[in-house]
């Protein structure tokens, strides 16, 4: 079960890191380009650590790259939010803000995990994630309370992505079992903090909080949107076309 949990965490980081990597060289200004790449680097690095650990626990001789590059979509356990396309900078920031808020509270809890490795990993990653959350929250404010146009674009992105934020704190079986054993995060516990932070930032950013309550889910159990297939087609191309070689 902890194997699956590590994949849930790792796949979120890998797929969001991939999406941010798509910005590299194309961001609104050089400083933003560097910051987005920095977050992509942190997330991909976290995914790598989590996959190494998952492979070790699984004990079947797989490597971090086997896990990233040789699974098909149904075995990916990331939430639907992180596979959503970049669209524009407003979408990218809303997606990032939801994820960072979740990731921040989740890792804060994970530092208390009964699993020593996971607690250590969380403590190390929390420094990076704290910076990510600061970056995305600040941009929520700048875009939300910037110009009329930026406000409108951010509101659109928020309305479109709103239905994907609930899955982050909605427990599946893996979450429930690991929360019970004190290894994983109790999502019920962080849910109020997560919602409060989102409300706080959205209202400071002068945005209307969407009233829809229907939330999409399924990613954590391998039921994905159409986007993931294309991400994997790109990401896994070389490993699939030239199997079994070193790179």
């Amino acid at each position, binding site marked *: 079960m902890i194997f699956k949990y590590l994949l849930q965490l790792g796949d979120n980081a890998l797929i969001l890191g*991939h999406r941010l*990597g*798509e910005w*590299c*060289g*194309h*961001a*609104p*200004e*050089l*400083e*933003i*380009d*560097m910051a987005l*790449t*920095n977050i*992509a*680097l942190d997330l*991909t*690095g976290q*995914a*790598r650590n989590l*996959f190494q650990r998952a492979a070790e626990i699984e004990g079947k001789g797989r490597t*971090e*790259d086997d896990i*990233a*590059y040789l699974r098909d979509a149904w075995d990916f356990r990331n939430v639907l939010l992180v596979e959503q396309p970049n669209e*524009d*900078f407003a979408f990218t920031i809303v997606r990032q803000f939801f994820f960072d808020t979740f990731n921040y509270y989740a890792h804060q809890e994970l530092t208390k995990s009964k699993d020593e490795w996971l607690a250590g990993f969380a403590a190390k990653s929390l420094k990076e994630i704290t910076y990510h959350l600061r970056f995305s929250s600040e941009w929520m*404010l*700048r*875009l939300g*309370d*910037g*110009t009329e*146009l*930026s406000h409108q*674009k951010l509101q659109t992105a928020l309305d479109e992505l709103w239905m994907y934020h609930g899955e982050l704190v909605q427990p599946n079986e893996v979450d429930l079992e690991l929360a019970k054993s004190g290894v994983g995060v109790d999502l019920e516990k962080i849910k109020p903090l997560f919602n409060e932070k989102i409300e706080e930032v959205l209202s400071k950013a002068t945005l209307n909080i969407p009233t829809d309550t229907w939330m999409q889910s399924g990613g954590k159990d391998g039921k994905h949107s159409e986007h993931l297939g294309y*991400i994997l087609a*790109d*990401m896994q*191309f*070389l*490993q699939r076309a*030239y199997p079994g*070689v*070193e*790179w």
Partner: protein
Amino acid sequence: MTHLNLEDQFQAKIDAETKIEPKDWMPEAYRKTLIRQISQHAHSEIVGMLPEGNWITRAPSLRRKLILLAKVQDEAGHGLYLYSAAETLGANRDELVQQLLTGKAKYSSIFNYPTTSWADIGAIGWLVDGAAIMNQVMLTRASYGPYARAMVRICKEESFHQRQGYEIMMTMAKGSPAQKQMAQDALNRWWWPSLMMFGPKDDDSAHSEQSMKWKIKRKSNDELRQQFVDVTVPQAEYLGLTIPDPDLQWNEDRGHYDFGEINWEEFWNVVKGNGPCNRQRIQARVKAYEDGAWVREAAVAYAEKKDQRKLVSPKAQAEAA
């Protein structure tokens, strides 16, 4: 009379190897030459992010992906220091960027070639960064202080990039037959454009002589090109790859490799905008700039609102009263 004196004093300083600093007097032509050269270099870093960025989502392992992300990020950083170095000469970053977007300013032609396979990421690191280092090591001794200092920092990162590129080539050259083929194909495509990076032959180089006198440049295009060939040929041999030049051979008398004639027609064509990717590169930069306009405007508007709120905050009002 005084003007001549200033120029003489300036040249004497250069001859004595004293660095020129932003507030020092300098001839207008020296300032212009430096702004042109430094901004071209900055633009090259920024445009250079595109061919490599093209493989970020397809990097074949997590380790390679991290290295590539970090490398492209370093290039953005180099662009930033170089724009700052140009600003010490009175240039303005926005204006320099406009010159790139409108095609008025040049950037290194090498980035107008496409990256069609993963081995190209290796070849760029090995050959393109290798060629850039030859030039940049020389520039760490350039007479203009801020440029020379920026170059010291950039060179350190570039040599790391070059090692990474060579390591990719090594892994592929020693890998499966398909990987070796990919590596050879990349070398075939990048070899000649890399030699072109050093610019026209000395006899045809418009800016060289004055730049040497001002010690912005310390070695001629042809000298640097020869140095690059001499260093790179044994590296290719070690990889077991063949450099695509039938005229390449060691010349005992000269103590250098002789090499074939560069296709100067291709060189000038790519400079003029007819390379395989000139249009795509500029279009990508223009798109990023235009699509990002509302974001930059929002940041400015938000900062202004924040300042105004500070001014009208109760505390500020109380203090004013």
